[in-house]
């Protein structure tokens, strides 16, 4: 497998405060990589750094192209879809408008229409609510909408920021099942940030452990799953 995204020496700051220290990270083509760690470890910051949403330094290479200095919009247009913390719903737009927004940057209208149909096969619930104001959706539905919106961009890489946050266990399981299908059927690579380590380890094939803005360990998820000391020390289970 070739690397889709290669990150070297990624650092990031919130004002004067440095939140990330020289992060090195590689995402394989077609793979699912998980970024685990406690609160404040720098997981969300890493995703924001990749998308140039904060002050950052270091290089990001996407499929051979240096995207370190591109704007967020351009990075998205290159095929990196970020499902943000808090879901980023356009609350006053309808569900359909939330999804159709992707048509703004899609040049292939026909393919985009097909993607819209496909999105509804993954998330039939969104189709039922298609004309509803997105702000009236439940938390789980809004998370589905956020993933669906990202999928509408026909991405090569999806950055998922805590898709399980604040949701009931059954909904979380449903969403993770769909994420797996998207990864397998659409060949979308994923970088997923999670507090729920057990869940992320199920989905991911590679894991990075973060602590206070530094990578403390990385390896195949099987290895982390089977290493009790590691789990106890960093993942709390």
């Amino acid at each position, binding site marked *: 497998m070739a690397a889709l995204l290669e990150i070297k020496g990624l650092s990031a700051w919130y004002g004067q405060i440095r939140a990330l220290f020289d992060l090195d990270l590689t995402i394989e083509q077609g793979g699912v990589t998980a970024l685990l760690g406690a609160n404040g470890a720098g997981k969300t910051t890493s995703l924001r750094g990749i*998308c140039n*949403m904060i002050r950052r330094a270091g290089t990001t290479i996407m499929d051979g192209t240096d995207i370190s200095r591109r*704007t*967020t*919009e351009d990075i*998205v*247009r290159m095929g990196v*879809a*970020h499902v*943000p913390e808090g879901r*980023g*719903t*356009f*609350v*006053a*737009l309808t569900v359909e*408008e939330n999804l*159709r*927004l*992707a*048509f*703004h*940057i899609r040049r292939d209208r026909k393919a985009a229409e097909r993607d819209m149909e496909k999105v509804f096969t993954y998330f039939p619930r969104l189709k039922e609510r298609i004309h509803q*104001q997105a*702000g*009236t*959706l*439940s*938390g789980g539905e*809004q998370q589905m909408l956020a993933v669906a*919106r990202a999928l509408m*961009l026909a991405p090569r890489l999806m950055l998922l920021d805590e898709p399980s946050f604040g949701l009931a266990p059954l909904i979380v399981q449903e969403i993770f099942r769909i994420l797996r299908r998207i990864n397998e059927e659409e060949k979308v690579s994923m970088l997923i940030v999670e507090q729920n380590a057990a869940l992320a380890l199920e989905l991911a094939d590679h894991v990075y452990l973060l602590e206070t803005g530094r990578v403390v360990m990385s390896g195949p998820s099987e290895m982390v799953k089977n290493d009790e000391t590691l789990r106890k020390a960093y993942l709390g289970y």
Partner: protein
Amino acid sequence: MDFFIQQIAAGLTNGAIYACVALGLVMIYVSTDHINFAQGEMAMFATYLAWAMIDAGVSYWVAFGATILIAFASGLFIQRVILKPLETAPVLALVVCFIALLSIFNALAGMIWSFTIKQFPSPFPQRDVFGNGLVSVQQIGVVTVTLLMLCLLTVFFRFTTLGLAMRAAAQNATSARLMGVRVSWMLALGWGLASAIGAIAGMLVAPIVFLDPNMMTGILVYGFAGALVGGIANPLGAVAGGFIVGVLENLVGSYIIGNELKLSFALIMVVGVLLLKPAGIFGRVIVKRV
């Protein structure tokens, strides 16, 4: 009764113009949370351009179209060159910037075209529609142009992806960026549209109040009142608000308080609405579940 109908017609005509101004204000407010104080002066300046063109022998509708295009381009230019560097500046810096724009346009117009009042041609004849002195073609024309523009804008914002992208950028800039929308350019487009709408308002009002560099000062206040009464975050509400302010202002002025106090009545309406229903009469309260 005739007098009453005349007042309603005149009120609707004024209201149409206030509605345009209100719409221009809302266009910028929804995407940036700022009130563009220079909206009126930009409109006045555009009207002078139209006047200069017509004076040079260009036909009315050609000058009308050209002015709208120029106004759109200058709105875009102002956002790109003057306001973009101030994107992260505190609100007060922007207020100063808007006031500077206001006085620059005002002084510039006076410098180029002098402060004497000029007559501005109307494309609509002054004669009556029904021959009984109640409603003039001019009045119908002004209202029609406003409604037509409103329809075009509605179609643009509801049925085009660019319009959708602009709405998304106004609502949630971060999220819009993550959908690949170039938010800063959407703001610039908003400025362009607001400026073009303002130019239309200026050209519609100029035949009624005559053209001079201070032509839009009062109208901006009425437009602002219209926007607040209808709901500053809701374009359709702002238009409705413009018409409401226009009609009420005229009726109250003619029957109750006299023309001198009309402007204060507009301000009383603003205060009243803000006290009783801060989102405006048609202000939509957005349902949000977390």
